[in-house]
């Protein structure tokens, strides 16, 4: 496995995600003010701070062990909608990554798909509901396509991050059907979804830490 992604690279990805959340937390909360309850940045930052603290100094034997820790930490520290959703994403991602201490690009893409399926299983969101799904799903599709068509990991991750960002931007005109934004009905139109925004950061972190 020449171009395998190591456990420490995966850890770097999660750390980078935490750093991006920290930098963007006010923006995420701001977006959630408009169509939610003004806490998405606060929630994600509390969760990722807990994750980074949990990673510090601890050694993990495998992908599965690392991401179980990450997922459980998010579930136990975030609450709200994003806690179970991101928690489930990482738990499923880790389980699919397996008990090795590295994963090849195909395996990484499969694990991302498993994570996405976990989000759907938990939250029942569909395309166009104006949720994090609308950023994650195109990203996972783009990753699959790129890797299937033989792209390098670096290019594939950039394509995925770009797709996530386009997906995030596409949430703006959507009328929300899931999450708190759905309570606003027509008034949810014209605002970017906070969860799609944090999901795009997750993909951008992958592109910069793993690419």
């Amino acid at each position: 496995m020449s171009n395998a992604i190591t456990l420490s690279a995966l850890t770097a990805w999660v750390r980078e995600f935490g750093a991006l959340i920290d930098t963007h937390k006010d923006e995420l909360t701001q977006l959630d003010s408009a169509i939610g309850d003004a806490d998405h940045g606060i929630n994600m930052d509390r969760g990722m701070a807990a994750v980074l603290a949990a990673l510090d100094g601890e050694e993990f034997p495998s992908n599965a062990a690392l991401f179980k820790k990450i997922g459980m930490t998010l579930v136990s520290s975030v609450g709200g909608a994003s806690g179970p959703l991101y928690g489930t994403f990482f738990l499923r991602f880790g389980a699919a990554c397996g008990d090795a201490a590295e994963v090849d690009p195909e395996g990484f893409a499969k694990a991302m798909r498993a994570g996405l399926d976990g989000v759907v299983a938990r939250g029942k969101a569909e395309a166009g509901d104006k949720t994090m799904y609308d950023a994650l799903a195109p990203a996972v599709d783009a990753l699959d396509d790129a890797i299937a068509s033989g792209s390098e990991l670096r290019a594939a991750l950039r394509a995925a991050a770009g797709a996530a960002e386009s997906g995030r931007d596409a949430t703006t005109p959507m009328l929300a059907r899931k999450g708190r934004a759905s309570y606003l009905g027509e008034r949810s139109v014209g605002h970017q979804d906070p969860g799609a925004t944090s999901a795009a950061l997750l993909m951008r972190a992958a592109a910069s830490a793993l690419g």
Partner: protein
Amino acid sequence: MKKLINDPGDVIGEALLGIEAAHPDLAVDHTTKVVYRADAPVSGKVALVSGGGSGHEPLHGGFVGPGMLDAACAGEIFTSPVPDQMLAATKAVDGGVGVLHIVKNYTGDVMNFEMAADLAAAETGVDVASVVIDDDVAVQDSLFTAGRRGVGTTVIAEKLAGAAAEQGRPLSDVADVVKAVNANGRSMGMALTSCTVPAAGQPTFELGDDEMEIGIGIHGEPGRKRVPLAAAREVAAMLVEPILEDLPFNRGDAVIAFVNGMGGTPLIELYLMYNEVARIMNGRGIEIARSLVGPYITSLEMAGCSVTVVKVSDDMLDLWDAPVNTPALRWGV
């Protein structure tokens, strides 16, 4: 941000210290942020666990005590608690005949309570049932959306279910009481001002001096629509009419009518609103059998109110009248 707090990150922990100090009948687990009846578990009684984001006080911690909840899980401000909290509470209050989770219908609350119930099934032999409250007529109900929010009916449901549990009814019956209250309860709210999540530091939304929000929830979120400020009697109509039409409530129905303050509206205005609400109900021939007026399910310091109407049977009225001894609702004891 003008609040009587220390660090925004410590608000909930410090408020829980205050609740514990002020109420010797309650016990607080500060690690998991759960408020318990001091005498939990009550053997042979179905136990009631609720919880949700903080910032809605007295809901839910103020409703813990004989005749109402056995435990309340306090999440971060406006954020559902995490499954660990509900799991700890479920284990601690089980009196051997099962635990009922009373969940307000928000994506976060529903998912976290679901995970807790899964964990309880996996880790314990405790019989757990869950009921979701979704009474807010401001939200269009639909199979394809998150559905309606759980708001004011929650207070009535927790009271009636608490009384049913105290009578020794089995888990499924107590769950049925909550379902019946939810099926017969409808609410709608409005805001004159926004509120400020301490960690966010600024109001969730801005509202002009001559505007109000109709169809708000309880999380400081904007409502269904923004309209010009109106007189109390028009506000009452905007809230009560959609409620009455939704169930619908009919001439001759007996109801519990509940005018709730959002946190920043003084009691004098709530009584004035109650007068308007009662006038509309009387005009429709609906009999207000019992009433509740005050800030019971709030949204921090938001100014505004909500109206909840629950159609009640004689059994439900008996459950309402049964003794309750909690910080926020107390009678008969």
